[in-house]
């Protein structure tokens, strides 16, 4: 799975992207986020506020934590957007 980080979430994690094999029990957005936060202090800090972290699956916004990761190859984590 390709995982991308943006803005201050990227800064807290310490890098912009990584490629990792997810454990087999990580099948939904919710289990993914819980697992991510357990990977270390920098991830717990970057993802500490559930209401702020935004998620995109294969470059589409996802607001449903129960959504399956089946067939997904890219997950992005980022704060609320401030373009325009």
């Amino acid at each position: 799975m390709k995982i991308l980080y943006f803005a201050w979430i990227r800064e807290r994690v310490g890098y912009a992207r990584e490629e990792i094999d997810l454990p087999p029990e990580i099948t939904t957005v919710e289990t993914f986020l819980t697992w991510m936060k357990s990977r270390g202090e920098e991830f717990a800090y970057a993802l500490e506020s559930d209401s702020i972290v935004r998620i995109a699956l294969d470059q589409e916004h996802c607001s449903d934590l129960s959504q399956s990761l089946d067939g997904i190859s890219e997950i992005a984590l980022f704060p609320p957007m401030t373009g325009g």
Partner: protein
Amino acid sequence: MVDTVHTTNAAKGPIVRIQAEDFDTAQIIEQATKDRSNVGAVVTFTGLCRDEGGKLAALELEHYAGMAEAEITRIATRAFAHWPLDQLIAIHRYGKIAPGENIVLVIATSSHRQAAFDAASYLMDFLKTKAPFWKKQHLIDGTSSKWVDAIEKDDKALERWKDVTG
């Protein structure tokens, strides 16, 4: 400066560009309306970088390459389907942008003004909260840089478009 927007044939959908370079608004309007005698209304929105009371040296715009274009295209495609538009063009810059410089351009053209006003407004409202861009402020005194916080009223602005769907 890249300013070629191909609009010679009837547009089948919106035109979306994500680029570091500046754009020439007048030239893009001219291209969008050339030989389009059915067009009676052109609405243009240009977002500029403010100097924040003289304190700002530059904004740095980070973006999610690929998704930025895909998401603005999704928003613009919904607008294109909902209003009777001739053209809908969105250009968003990324990278370092100095006060007074352009950040974003939206142009909507139509036979009549209301569709053009509404489509441009809809596109900007959604772009602000759904297009994956993040602004960081660099201050003139060089002491600090700070990520811009999202504004709640930007989220609220979406509520008035509830009846617009793809």
